[in-house]
């Protein structure tokens, strides 16, 4: 097994194992509603059936960042997408499906590489979005796993609490 060796990429790599066949997972991943749901902690994603998607990240002190991604590679065991020319935050993502041993289903290895303006990565990106790049990727994978296994993504928003208007939002 080969792993990407670029040190900079390490922080944006994460993996989960899901007890479902790769074909089902691949189909679920490419559904536009899935993309919107699993990235909601990070971006507003409006995806299309052909795998293209418009991304928008706002709420940071630096305003709103927008970009469009298109599928560059569409294989049974691998999806790769990349932002198009003019992106506010250029990035590429690779999702690899591998069979897990025994009855454990499929391993999903996700690597999203952000290339922010000015070349600063990691901590600087965290400042922009209040999320570490690895957290962005891992949370998306955890949400995807929940959706694939149970049909829903766990949430507590909103729920009762003695805070804003009696709720936790």
């Amino acid at each position, binding site marked *: 097994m080969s792993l990407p060796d670029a040190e900079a990429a390490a922080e944006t790599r994460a993996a989960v194992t899901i007890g479902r066949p790769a074909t089902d997972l691949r189909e679920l991943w490419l559904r536009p509603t899935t993309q919107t749901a699993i990235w909601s902690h990070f971006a507003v994603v409006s995806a299309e059936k052909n795998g293209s998607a418009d991304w928008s990240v706002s709420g940071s002190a630096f305003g709103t960042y927008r970009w469009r991604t298109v599928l560059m590679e569409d294989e049974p065991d691998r999806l790769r997408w990349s932002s198009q020319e003019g992106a506010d935050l250029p990035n590429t993502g690779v999702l690899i499906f591998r069979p897990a041993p025994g009855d454990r289903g499929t391993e999903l290895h996700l690597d999203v590489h952000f290339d922010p303006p000015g070349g600063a990565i990691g901590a600087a990106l965290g400042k922009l979005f209040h999320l570490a790049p690895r957290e962005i990727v891992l*949370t998306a994978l955890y949400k995807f796993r929940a959706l694939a296994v*149970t049909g829903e993504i*766990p949430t*507590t928003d909103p*729920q*009762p609490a*003695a805070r804003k208007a009696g709720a*936790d939002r």
Partner: protein
Amino acid sequence: MRALCWNGVNDLRVETVADPEILNPNDVILKVRLSTTCGSDLHLIDGLIPTMREGDVLGHEFMGEVVDVGREVTKVAKGDRVVVPSFISCGQCWYCQHDLYSLCDTTHPKPELQEPLLGYPTAGIYAYSHAFGGYAGAHADYVRVPFANTDCFKVPDGVTDEAALFISDAAPTGFMGADFCDIQRGDVIAVWGCGGVGLMAQQSAMILGAERVIAIDRYPERLAQAEAFGAIALDYTKVDVVEALKELTGGRGPDACIDAVGMEAGGTGLQQAYDRVKQALYLETDRGTALREAMLAVRKGGILSILGVYGLMDKFPLGLLMNKGVTVRTAQQHGQAYVDRLLEHAQRGELTPAALATHRFALEDSPTGYRMFKHKEEGCLRAVFVP
């Protein structure tokens, strides 16, 4: 609705909050009939567990009546009287399929908070800090229960609300601890702690065929309850526990020891003083007196079953376990694996969890209930709240 909220260390208040709503298709809403205090809540109240937020609704041990159901819910319907384990489990992931329900892969809404602490996120739990999911608790008029098809269990006729209440947590946790002991004919089981979980572990060990059960605590009312359940009671302030256990087992030591105490163990001697100082300075979260004693007392090749809740502890004598070849088994409760069986034991009168309900309060008086529970006033074993 009204709910008991955490507002800081030792600051509990009953407040008006929003009602819970169905958020996902497998959710139900329960009208809470009864909820209860748990020793692990004291860790939150005392500020030993980080990531609580002011205004969080407390309470993870409860039962109630279904009043609203999500569109995917098939197992229960409006009007059903149900009990719910404190960990939220989907029933469909690899862990749930292997009866490891508290390790469920899919129910933690904030996995990014817990993954750095434990390596991997566990199941979400009601009212046990945001690192453990941040789900609102059940010391309230209503509570939202996700994954009702897996997590709601109908209470059969002949099992009272009070008995069913403890089948939410104390009973399945105690039963799991006894199950971990792999009890064989002739086995002697020692249980540190005669709180709700310890007492349920003792009764469970008897149900599972233990020859003899020995209960260790310091509070007379709790030791009396252990004796009423059929255990031999040891007061650790009056006897040398390890010597007493040797005496009671012909020098062999207990075949298995269950720690049902956890991070706020009472104790005597220098080690206890050391732990208290370090805990007060937040240099460790745990006082481990009971656990260390169990490690010393357990027979060679025996089993140590840990149910007490722990965070960080130093002076953990691993050599005792290694040199004696002790097997350690531990988990947060995998309640969904046991609840049906426990309801049957309760129906037949073999398990009597209602004995834990020594004090009853209206929800409005729940801060008083927690105070009495924390300080064990008037023999308070568990405070039960009625919304």
